[in-house]
C-alpha cells in the first residue's frame, strides 16, 4: 500500500522531474504521570507523505497528511506549482542513486502492539519502585514505518520501534532521575528505575551551596547525553562545518585520545530507519577516532559542496542541515562491554561509583537542563544541573549540592588530557526533541566551569 502511495505521487509529476517521496506512518503513545498518578495519556496515528521536487533548475518541498487520491493529487499539483514559481536552486545535488540497504530496522512486537494498559503497568512499577516518594515522568512507545522512492530508481523501506521510560522521584525539594530507552519493551524495568530515582532523591535532602568555580566532575550518562547531543547538533553536521560555524576540524586532535565517537544507524537495536530522507543508505562513520576528529555527517547538498559523498544524514528540516542521530560515545581502547550493577546511594550504578572513587574533590552531576549555545564556534554552552548533584570528597559523595549554573565549552571539557575516566557501559537514551538515540557512558572530567548557584 505504501509503495502504491509513492507511485501515485511520482506518476503525477511532469516529465523531467527529479523527485523523491517519503511516506512515514507513526503510532505514538505517551503515558505521562505527575504527583504519582497518570494525568495525561495520549496516542495518535500520524501519516505524512513528503515530496521534494526539482524541476527546471528549481526546488520545492511539500507534505500532506491527506493520503487519499485527492490529497496526493493536490500535493503533487501544489508542489509543481510552487517549483515553477521558485527562484533557481544552483546547489541542487541530484537524487540518490539506487543502492542496497544494510537493514530494515528493528521491530519489537511488544512495543508495536503496546496498549494503554501496558504503559500504565510500567508507570505503576516505576511509582511502586520509588517506595512512596512523589513521582513524575512518562512512558512512550513508538512504532514507525518509513517508505521511500525517488525518480532515479532508489527505493527503501523500514520499520522500527522505540520504548522509553523516564521519571523522577521527589522528596522535600530534592529530585532524583532515572531513564532508559531502547527498541524493545524488555529494555525497560520500571521498578529498577523508580528505585534508582528514589535513592537519588533521598540522598538529596538538605543540599549545601557550593561557591562558583572550576570543579572536577563525574557526569552520569544522563548528563553526558546532553554533551553528546550538543556536539552532534552544533558540531558534527556538514552544513555547520562547511559554513565554519562548527568547532569540528577534521584531522585535528580536538578531544581526549581516550574517546571515540561513532554514528551507526545500522547497529542492532538502533532507533530510526537505516536510510535518510534523500534515500541514501546510512553507514557507520567514525566521527572521532581516539580524540582525532575524523569525519562529519553529510547530506547530498553539503557533501557536494566539498566534493564528498553523502553519509546518509539528511533530515526533513533542511534548515539546520545534516545531523547524526545515532551516536555512540565510547572508549577508544574498545573496552566497552561491562554491565554495571545497581548500588546503594545517589550514584546511578557501579560504573559511576568507580569513577567517583577516583575523585579527591569534585562534583557528581546526574542531569543537565536547558543548555543553550552561547557561541557555536567554540560550543560554549550555558545550562544548569538538575535531578541530583553531590559534592565528592575522597572518592565518595559526601553532601548533596544545590543546582548550579555552568558556562562551559563542551569540546574544551573533553580536550586532550581532560578526560580522567570513561565508563565501559553505554546507556541508550533518547531525546525529547528529535528522534534520536544516543549511547553514552559516564565520564570523569578534569574541569567544569560552574558560574553560579541556582539561587543566585
Amino acid at each position, binding site marked *: 500500500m505504501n509503495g502504491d502511495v509513492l507511485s501515485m505521487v511520482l506518476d503525477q509529476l511532469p516529465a523531467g522531474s527529479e523527485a523523491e517521496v517519503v511516506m512515514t506512518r507513526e503510532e505514538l503513545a505517551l503515558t505521562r504521570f505527575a504527583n504519582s498518578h497518570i494525568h495525561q495519556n495520549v496516542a495518535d496515528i500520524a501519516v505524512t507523505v513528503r515530496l521534494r521536487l526539482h524541476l527546471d533548475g528549481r526546488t520545492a518541498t511539500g507534505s500532506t497528511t491527506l493520503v487519499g487520491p485527492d490529497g496526493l493529487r493536490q500535493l503533487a499539483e501544489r508542489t509543481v506549482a*510552487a517549483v515553477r514559481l521558485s527562484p533557481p*536552486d544552483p546547489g541542487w545535488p541530484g537524487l540518490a542513486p539506487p543502492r542496497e540497504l544494510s537493514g530494515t530496522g528493528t521491530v519489537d512486537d511488544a512495543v508495536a502492539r503496546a496498549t494503554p494498559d501496558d504503559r500504565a503497568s510500567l508507570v505503576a512499577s516505576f511509582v511502586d519502585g520509588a517506595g512512596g516518594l*512523589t513521582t513524575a515522568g512518562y512512558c512512550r512507545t513508538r512504532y514507525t514505518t518509513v517508505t521511500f522512492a525517488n525518480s532515479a530508481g532508489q527505493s527503501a523501506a523500514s520499520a522500527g520501534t522505540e520504548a522509553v521510560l523516564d521519571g523522577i522521584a521527589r522528596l522535600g525539594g530534592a529530585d532524583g532521575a532515572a531513564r532508559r530507552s531502547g527498541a524493545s519493551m524488555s529494555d525497560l524495568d520500571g521498578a529498577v528505575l523508580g528505585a534508582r530515582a528514589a535513592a537519588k532523591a533521598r540522598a538529596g535532602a538538605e543540599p549545601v551551596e557550593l561557591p562558583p568555580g572550576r570543579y572536577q566532575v563525574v557526569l552520569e550518562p544522563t548528563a553526558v547525553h546532553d554533551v553528546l547531543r550538543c556536539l552532534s547538533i552544533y558540531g558534527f553536521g556538514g552544513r555547520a562545518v562547511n559554513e565554519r560555524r562548527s568547532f569540528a576540524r577534521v584531522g585535528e586532535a580536538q578531544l581526549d585520545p581516550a574517546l571515540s565517537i561513532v554514528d551507526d544507524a545500522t547497529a542492532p537495536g538502533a532507533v530510526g530507519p537505516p536510510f535518510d530522507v534523500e534515500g541514501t543508505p546510512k553507514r557507520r562513520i567514525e566521527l572521532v577516532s581516539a580524540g582525532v576528529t575524523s569525519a562529519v555527517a553529510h547530506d547530498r547538498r553539503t557533501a557536494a559542496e566539498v566534493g564528498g559523498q553523502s553519509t546518509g544524514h539528511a533530515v526533513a528540516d533542511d534548515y539546520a542541515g545534516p545531523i547524526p542521530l545515532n551516536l555512540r560515545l565510547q572508549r577508544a581502547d574498545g573496552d566497552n562491554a561491562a554491565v554495571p550493577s545497581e548500588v546503594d546511594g545517589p550514584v546511578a550504578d557501579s560504573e559511576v561509583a568507580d569513577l567517583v572513587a577516583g575523585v579527591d574533590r569534585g562534583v557528581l552531576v546526574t542531569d543537565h537542563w536547558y543548555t543553550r549555545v552561547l557561541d557555536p564556534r567554540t560550543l560554549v554552552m550555558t545550562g544548569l544541573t538538575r535531578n541530583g548533584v553531590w559534592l565528592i570528597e575522597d572518592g565518595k559523595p559526601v553532601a548533596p549540592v544545590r543546582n548550579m549554573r555552568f*558556562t562551559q565549552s563542551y569540546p574544551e571539557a573533553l580536550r586532550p588530557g581532560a578526560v580522567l575516566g570513561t565508563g565501559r557501559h553505554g546507556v541508550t537514551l533518547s531525546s525529547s526533541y528529535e528522534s534520536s538515540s544516543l549511547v553514552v557512558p559516564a565520564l570523569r572530567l578534569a574541569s567544569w566551569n560552574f558560574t553560579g548557584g541556582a539561587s543566585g
Partner: protein
Amino acid sequence: MSEFDTAIVAVEAALAAGARYADARVMHRRYESMSARNGEIRELMQDEDAGLGVRALVGSGWGFFAVPDVGDAAARAAGTRAAEIATASGRVPGPAADLVRLPVRSGSWANDCAVDPLEVPLSVKGDLLVGATGLAHDQGADLAEGTYQIWDTRKWFASSEGHRIDQHIRECGGGISATAIGEDETQRRSYPSYRGQYGTRGWELVDELDLGGHAARIADEARALLTAPQCPAAETTLILGDEQMALQIHESVGHAIELDRILGWEAAYAGTSWLDLTRLGNLTYGSELMNIVIDPRVPGALGSFGFDDEGTPAAPRYAVQNGQWVGVLAGRDSAMMAGLDYAGSVRSDGWARLPMVRMTNVGLEPGPHSMDEMIAQTRDGVFMDMNRSWSIDDRRLNFQFGCEVGYEVKDGRLGRMLRNPTYTGIGPRFWQSMDMLSSTVVPWGTPNCGKGQPSQVGHTGHPTPAARFRNVRIGVRG
C-alpha cells in the same frame, strides 16, 4: 458531513464508551515557509495537514486519541479509543479531576488579515529573501539568512457540554540575520528579531518590516562585533531593548505563571515554578512598575484567538499588578484543582496533540519613560538587545540570557559596542530592580515555544516596552 458533525460523532462515541466529558477538535492547517542563504533560496516548504483529536474524561482519568482522518468511522473509533485510554489512566489513579464550570459557548472567530499571505506570489516572497540576504552577504556577512513562515489554521471544536466553535487563524512573519565568522567565534545580528517578527496578521506584517532596508546595517554590525570589546564582567545598571524584554517576560514570567507547572504536572520535564499558590495575591513579583497582562485579544499579536482550545472565550487578566502576583494561565481542569474560577489559556499545536496550558499574549504594560530618558539618566551601565541565547532553571528562577549586541552607557550617552553581552539573575530580585519603563510597546511574537510530551510548539505574544534594571550581574563567560 460537516467538520462539526465529525467532532460530534467523536464526542458521542467517547460518551458511549464511558466518558463523562469529551471534546473534539477537527483541524485543517496549511503551512508555508521559505528560507534563503546568501542570496539563494535554500528551501521552500508547503505542508497541509488535517485530522481529529478527541479528549475524554473517564472517572478522574483523561485520555486523548488523534487520527489523520476526518471520516465518520474514524471519528467514532477515535472517540472510543480516547475513552479506552482514559480508562487505563485509572490504573494509576490520582485525585478527583473535574472542570471548572464556565458558560457553554457557540461562535466563530477570525483574525484580521489584510493581505492573505498564502496568496502572495512565491516569486515576490522569494525575491524579498533573495534580495535581503544577497545584500547582507555583499555587505560582508559570511552567512546571511532569511526566512518567512505562514500558518493558516481552521478548527472546529465541539464538546459534550454543547460547545460549537469554529475559528480561522492566519499567522505569518519573517526576518533576516547576518553572521560574521571569526577565527575563534561567530557574531550574529538579526532583524527585526531573533528568528523574526510574527503575528496574527497577513503579509502586510512582513511588508512593514522592510527587511531589505536593514540588511546592510546588520551585516556591518555583525562584522563590527568580531572586533568589539568583550562585555565586561560587572554588577551594573542594565537597559534591555523591547525585543530582549519579550524573551525576559516569556521565560521568567510567562512560564512561571502556568498553572500546570505550579501544580507539578510538568515536574519531570518542563519543570515546576517558584510560585506557590498559597501566595497568590500576596507575593511581590517585581517593582510597582511591573504590570503583566494576559490578553489573547491583542489585535495582531501572535498569541491572539477568539476562544482557547477548551472553548473559553478570550478575556484579559492581570498576572502581576503593581508588582504583586495576582493571576495565572489556567485551563478548566487545572483551575478546578487550584480552586480558581477562570480558565482560557489552553491550546494545542495541532489536531494530534493534547490541549494544555500555554501562554497567550503575556505582556508588560508601558511605563512613563522614553528610551532616551533611560539612557540619559544612566551614569554607568550597559544597553543590551536582541536575544542570542537563553537558559533558565526548572523553577523559572535562575536565568542567564545572552544578547547579540551591547553598548556601554556612560554619563547618559551610548558608548562603544560590546560583544558577547550576557546577564544573569534571579527572577523576583531582577523584576524588583526595574526602575524605568518605556512608554513604547512592541507586540513581539514567539513562534517556537516548546512544552509538553509529546513535544508541542506554541505561538505566544509579548507586547512589551524597553526597561531599565539596577544592580544586574553581566558578562558571564565560559
